[in-house]
């Protein structure tokens, strides 16, 4: 008995050790997350990605803005590579059945309606995969390629754009996609204003002169604009380029007309219905994915559409959930919970880049800045005095904000187009450097001067978002300004209930933490919305004819060189009149597992998965 017991124990120990050594503790492998031991390492510029299927046709007309000699050719035009459809088919065959993408979003979205979305940060990628877009913007080249549209061709002065849509596309309910739908769908953006919906594209859509826009046949739309706009094509890669079947909308509006009230329009009721009814969205869309499940503000599950016009959709499911913050996104991506994660926090971005996990990112210029109220709605505020704006520039050290709030990982800049971004130029930087730089003594002297001249007591209200690291930013700025003689009152609060009401609705602020977020797709719209003297979205009441003239030049800039020159001109006016103080550029983008291929940019930093696949 004695020896038997010891033999049994020894056997058990040996068995256990062998099992421990050989055991595989992997789970069922439904998701293809990054391996912790071998972090994702796609190239930062995405050159190794196969070209999207929709871009391979040799018969495609040149993209609208692709006429400059200095533009790089689109990657998809490389004739030595195997065709994109071939690669995609191979990818589909290689994709493990049942594969899905678990996508960590920056912020959950409430609505699948393009008129109710707010770009990349709130629902952009979810909705683009359901609705598709007319044109897909390629930020590296600064051009747009045809997606649901075959071509988009401008006239010489960019006041007239001819759009040709693809034939044979049908919506989920079987209706054919026709040219008139483009116009009808865009007109819906006007209903969204002041109706509880926000969409940054609405102001840009208003530049289309719909009264003279023509639909000569079922495949052609001729847009006529109120003014020449050389980058109009970027608009069609954003929400206005996502076409909602207008016949379904008309039917829903009829149904909701009886339920509409003075405060809640039928259009809003329709959007609310679409937000919680996947069947409606699926019937009215023709993108690569359908909505399978939706919980507004929590998660969205998309499932591949069987009859996608662009060919087979390889990845069967995409689940969008919100771990809670950029930091949580990155940690969860590292842990393998997600194989795609949207990142925006500079502190996280540096780590992700070091790990080689960024597929596609873009610097959002003017991502960090302080607005000055310069008399919105006739208010008598101290920010009207340029000496105060100059004093703030002298008082604030961007590096201190960086150290205190961003662990030194923020890309600080004094320029509206940061060095390294497409539209930066030495001329622009020269102008940016003419703005007042950090000089606390000069700041204190200016503050004293204004106090002596006007009787102002030095008080100033700073409104800032309380989301991380907002409090640290506000605290750092408060300290620097008070050292210069300001008496700062800080109002921290949530963006939706404090910052936006204070700045936009009530205009009850003197200085506010803000961001214009101008990237390759949104430069023109962003600067014009915020700085043009006649813009309804000018939150500062800044108005100067020189700025208006410079912005006009930006609209008409025909190629990248012209755009650089125009932006530099805007920068020169900015440095002279100081409408706001820029302190950083904000990088945002997608961390993607290395085995996910073929993800394509649509517009801004939103991503199409229609041609994506997961390598086995």
């Amino acid at each position, binding site marked *: 008995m004695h020896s038997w017991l010891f033999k049994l124990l020894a056997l058990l120990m040996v068995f256990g050790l062998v099992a421990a050594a050989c055991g595989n503790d992997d789970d069922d492998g439904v998701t293809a997350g990054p391996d912790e031991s071998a972090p994702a390492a796609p190239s930062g510029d995405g050159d190794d990605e196969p070209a999207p299927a929709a871009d391979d046709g040799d018969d495609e007309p040149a993209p609208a803005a692709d006429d400059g000699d200095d533009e790089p050719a689109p990657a998809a035009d490389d004739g030595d590579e195997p065709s994109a459809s071939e690669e995609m088919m191979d990818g589909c065959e290689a994709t493990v059945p049942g594969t899905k993408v678990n996508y960590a979003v920056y912020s959950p979205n409430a609505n699948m309606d393009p008129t109710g979305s707010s770009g990349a940060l709130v629902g952009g990628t979810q909705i683009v995969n359901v609705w598709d877009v007319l044109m897909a913007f390629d930020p590296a080249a600064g051009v747009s390629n045809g997606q649901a549209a075959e071509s988009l061709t401008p006239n010489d002065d960019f006041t007239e754009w001819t759009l040709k849509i693809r034939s044979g596309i049908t919506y989920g309910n079987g209706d054919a996609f026709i040219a008139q739908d483009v116009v009808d769908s865009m007109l819906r953006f006007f209903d969204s204003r002041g109706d509880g919906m926000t969409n940054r594209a609405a102001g840009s859509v208003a530049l289309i002169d719909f009264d003279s826009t023509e639909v000569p046949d079922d495949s052609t739309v001729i847009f006529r604009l109120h003014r020449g706009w050389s980058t109009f094509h970027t608009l069609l890669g954003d929400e206005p380029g996502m076409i909602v079947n207008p016949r379904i909308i008309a039917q829903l509006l009829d149904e909701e007309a009886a339920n509409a009230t003075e405060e809640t329009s039928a259009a809003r009721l329709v959007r609310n219905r679409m937000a919680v009814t996947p069947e409606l969205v699926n019937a009215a869309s023709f993108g690569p994915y359908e909505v399978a499940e939706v919980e507004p503000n929590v998660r969205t599950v998309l499932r591949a559409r069987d009859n996608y016009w662009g060919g087979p959709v390889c990845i069967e499911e995409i689940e969008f959930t919100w771990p809670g913050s950029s930091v949580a996104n990155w940690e969860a991506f590292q842990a393998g919970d997600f194989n795609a994660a949207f990142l925006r926090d500079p502190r996280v971005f540096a780590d992700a880049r070091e790990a080689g996990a960024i597929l596609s990112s873009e610097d959002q210029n003017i991502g960090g800045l302080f607005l000055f109220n310069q008399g919105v709605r006739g208010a008598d505020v101290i920010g009207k005095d340029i000496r105060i704006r100059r004093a703030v520039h002298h008082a604030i050290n961007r590096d201190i904000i960086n150290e205190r709030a961003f662990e030194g990982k923020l890309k600080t800049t004094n320029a509206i187009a940061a060095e390294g971004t497409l539209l930066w130029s030495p001329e622009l930087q020269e102008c940016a450097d003419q703005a007042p730089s950090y000089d606390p003594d000069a700041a204190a002297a200016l503050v004293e001067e204004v106090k002596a001249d006007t009787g102002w007591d030095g008080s100033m209200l700073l409104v800032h978002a309380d989301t991380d690291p907002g409090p640290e930013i506000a605290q750092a700025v408060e300290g620097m300004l008070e050292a210069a003689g300001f008496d700062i009152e800080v109002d921290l609060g949530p963006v939706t*209930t404090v910052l936006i009401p204070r700045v936009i609705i009530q205009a009850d602020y003197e200085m506010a933490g803000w961001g214009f977020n101008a990237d390759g797709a949104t430069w023109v719209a962003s600067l014009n919305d915020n700085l043009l003297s006649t813009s309804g979205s000018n939150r500062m009441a800044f108005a100067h004819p020189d700025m208006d003239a410079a912005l006009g030049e930006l609209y008409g800039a025909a190629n990248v060189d012209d755009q650089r020159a125009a932006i530099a001109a805007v920068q020169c006016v900015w440095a002279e009149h100081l409408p706001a103080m820029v302190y950083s550029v904000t990088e945002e983008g997608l961390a993607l597992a290395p085995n996910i291929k073929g993800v394509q940019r649509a517009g801004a930093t939103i991503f199409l998965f229609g041609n994506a696949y997961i390598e086995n």
Partner: protein
Amino acid sequence: MLRVIGLKLIRLVPVLFLVSLATFFLVDLIPGDPAANMLGTDATLEDLEAVRKSLGLDKPITDRYVDWLSGALSGDLGLSLRSPNEPVTDLIQRSVGPTLRLSAMALGMSFTTAIFLGVWSAQAAGTRVDRLVSGTMFGFISVPTFLAGLLFIFFFVFRESIPRWIWVIGMGLIVLRLLYLAISRLAEDRADLSGWFGYAIATLVVAGLMMWVFVQWPDFPRTASHRYDDNWREQIRSLFLPALALALSEIAVFTRLLRADMLSTLQEQFVLSARAKGMPTWRILFRDALRPSSFSLITVAGITLGRLIGGTVIIETIFGLEGLGKLIVGTGVIPKNYTIVQGGVLVLAVGYVMLNAIIDISYQYLDPRIRRGRV
């Protein structure tokens, strides 16, 4: 009994009324304007006023309270102020499931761990084992839940080999101890099977468990944001860390409570009698002494479940779980979506009060001494 139940239910009415009153008025103290939350960035002052009017925010607060309470009594908790303006009842129904699962799992972990540790500690009162357990429990109580969550993420997700080897070493020590006992008993008297065979079996079981857990060690997710409605195994995996973080302090409380009750029970005459009869220790502990010692534990566990359901917000936020706590704070308090705050807190309060009432009633039913005392 019915009279007692009726009286208890009647006493709930003023409590719930006060809760509804406090909830409604406290929400008004949160800074910010709920109307602005509905409007977005294109709104004007006129829009703001119109929405405030449509929400009834221009009415006196007492009128608003009466309107809300009458709706709540008929099961209508209003609409969320955030697009797409879903009914609050639907939102609560959707988020209560994950919270209930998390709370139940935390309670289950606390309960089972505390029973073993509490009984063991009581049996070994005054020894090094007892001091070790007591010290560890004080340590558990001292760790705030949010810190436990962050530490678990660090160790179980990003340094998973550390807890894995801690498990092996800890269990290995137990195995060695059991093995030593088995061998020493065997050396004393080979013929007495009852002396060493039990230890040998226990050694095998513990060693097997140690190896099985080591081999099967799962990859714990950083977040619990995925839903696994049809896969219980994945549900357990994704909820394990948040549940453990919640359970930590409860384990300590339950263990201390059970130890104290067990110590008292072990001095009872019937236990001494059982010992005198030569009954096995495990039988005395788990069959005779545990049951009469567990009334306090059951009562506190019930109350704890109610508290956990309402108190998981921090853990839900850290682990990205879309539960009731996150709904109330993230979707309700922060954007001043006051219909969600009011509805959510009311549901929690009703649930908590009802749970306590049920425990109170069942306690009287289960314990004859209380019943007789009342009669």
